[in-house]
Structure formats: C-alpha cells, structure tokens
C-alpha cells in the first residue's frame, strides 16, 4: 500500500463539509456526530487487525528478497521487457532498473519498488538527453506502475478476513485476470499513442 496521497487536502475538506451541509438538510446531525466518534475507533481497529498480517507478510517477503529472488526473476523477465523499452539498450543501467522495479512490484515489495523505479526514471532521462518531455519508454514504464501487477493482493485479503469472509483469497483469480487485461490495455495504448 502506498502513502502520501496527493490532492487529498481538497478532497478530505470537501467530504467533511459536504457531509455537514447534507446532515443539516436531512436532519441526520445526531448520526453524523456519532459517526465521527465511531470512525476514529474503527480506523484503529482496522490498523490493529492488519498490523499482524502485514508484518508477517513483510517478514516472509524479506526472506525471498534476501535470497536474491528479485535479481533472478528480473533476468527471466528481461527478454520480454526489452521489446517494450526499445529506446533503452539491452545492458544499460536503465534496463536493469526497469526489470528490478517491475519484479519488485510483482512480488509486492512496494517499499523496494519505488526507489528502483525512481532510479529507472533517472537513467531514462539521461538516455533522453535530459529533456523535460517524457520519452516513450518513460510513459510505458509509468503506465505499468499505475497498473497493479502484484501476484498476491495481501491487503485486500487481510481486510476480507477481518470481515469474516468464507474464503478471503477466493477473489485472487479474478484479480489476476482483471489486472493482466488492464495492464495489456495500458501498454497497448501507451504504444499506439506514441506518434
């Protein structure tokens, strides 16, 4: 999960004000007042429920990462990825960082993926003669990062478990198909609109 959302200052303020105004008209002020108290403790309950599993999962993933799984998988994905990033030479630092970032995303190593992605962007900017216009490779790369390619949607499964889902992971195949189709659509559009 990623923090540091943008535009949130306005959205948050808007949601709160619209709720208060609406409560004046609908006469739901009592419910609104209670919801503020309940909302705050609900949030802490949610964090506490998620903390155990998020911590466990980060620990497990760290084992995979320490064993060098990111490098191994990055090598496997490279033959496919090099066709998508034609303006990056095959053995360039840019290509290496791109492969590492995408692998880290697939594994769900969000904290590792972001710095790798930023260094990939820096290398691609060098290849693009430091222009402040996005290159084709940059666009494809960022579009791939805005699509979800994570193999296991852990956060979602934990939340489903919290609300006593009969099978918290039963949504996983549906998640795989939707994310792969969306990823293909994103890459295709990024490529088609290059001209």
């Amino acid at each position: 999960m990623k923090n540091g959302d943008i535009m949130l200052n306005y959205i948050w303020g808007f949601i709160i004000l619209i709720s208060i105004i609406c409560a004046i008209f609908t006469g739901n002020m009592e419910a609104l007042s209670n919801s503020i108290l309940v909302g705050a403790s609900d949030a802490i309950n949610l964090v506490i429920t998620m903390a155990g599993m998020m911590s466990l999962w980060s620990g497990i993933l760290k084992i995979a990462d320490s064993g060098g799984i990111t490098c191994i998988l990055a090598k496997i994905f490279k033959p496919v990825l090099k066709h998508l990033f034609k303006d990056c030479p095959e053995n360039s630092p840019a290509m290496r960082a791109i492969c590492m970032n995408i692998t880290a995303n697939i594994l769900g190593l969000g904290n590792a993926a972001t710095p790798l992605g930023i260094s990939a962007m820096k290398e691609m900017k060098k290849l693009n003669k430091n222009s402040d216009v996005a290159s084709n490779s940059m666009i494809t790369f960022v579009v791939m990062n805005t699509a979800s390619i994570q193999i296991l949607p852990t956060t979602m499964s934990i939340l489903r478990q919290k609300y006593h889902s009969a099978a918290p992971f039963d949504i996983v195949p549906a998640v795989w198909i939707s994310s792969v189709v969306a990823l293909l659509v994103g890459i295709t559009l990024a490529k088609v609109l290059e001209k």
Partner: protein
Amino acid sequence: MSKFSFYIMPCMIGFIVVFGLVKKVPIFDVFLSGAEEGLTSTFSIAPSLIGLIMSVSMLKASGALDVITSLLEPVGNLLAVPKETIPLMLLRPISGSGSLAFIDSIFKSFGPDSFAGRVASVMMGSTETTFYAIAIYFGAVGIKNIRHTIFAALVADLTSFIFSILMVRLFFT
C-alpha cells in the same frame, strides 16, 4: 474456486522458506527485520486512516453518500456497475488509503462475500493509486510534459473496473 484459494498462501510461504534455506539466508533473522519494517509501515498509515475513515463515515451517516450514489446510478446502470462501488471507482486512482477506508465501509454494510463486496475487492486488488505513481515518478526527475500517460493509465483503470465486475459475475454466480 474457494478450495483452490486455500493453497495460495501456504504454498507461497513454503516456497519462500525453501528458497531462503537453499540460498543460505538466515531465514528467521531476516524474517524478524522484515516483520519489524512491516509493523512500522502499517502503523505509519494509522493517522491517515483515522482521518479518512472518519470522513467516509461522516459521508455515510449524513446521507450524502446516498445522494451521490443515486445521482451516479444512471451512469452505473449504463455500465452494469453495482452502485455501491461507484464512489470507489472515483476515489481509487486518487487515494490509496481513502479507497481502503471506503472498502472498509462497503464490507461493514454488505459483507466481503456479497456481490458489491467482491467487486470492490477485485477493483482494489487489480488497480494502483494511479495519480500517486504518476506524480512520484515524473516528479522525481522533473518531467513537465507527460504526453499521453494519464489517458493510457486511466483507460487501463477503467478496464480493470469493468473486468472486475465481469470476473466476479463469471466466478461467483
């Protein structure tokens, strides 16, 4: 479907443990340091979740959410979207914690195994916080003209949402 799903987690953990042992990783020590990072990062989102869950509960309690949802219902019907998930579709590309807060409220009202609950789960799991990724990556290297990035990324998000509904229909009804 649900029988198969119980294999996913144990198999992944088993695979990673064997992989770690083969690669001579001190698995428990490394686990502890990773688990500590995970714990810290989960608690670090607590303040933003408190703020956002409060605002989503206010939206619900005041009746404003019902008004917004019913205003958007005609659009939803057009795309066969369950109306409870329309606000989620609008929030998802902008705010990760905000969508999590919203899904929490959907689960609370309808349950995670309801149609809306499943669709919301798949929507959340198959997308990312699009504007956040765009801002962080292009911002980090000072790119001013991002050309068709936003269009391609948002069409991909919309594709995820439509497929989420189709897949839940296919697998669970």
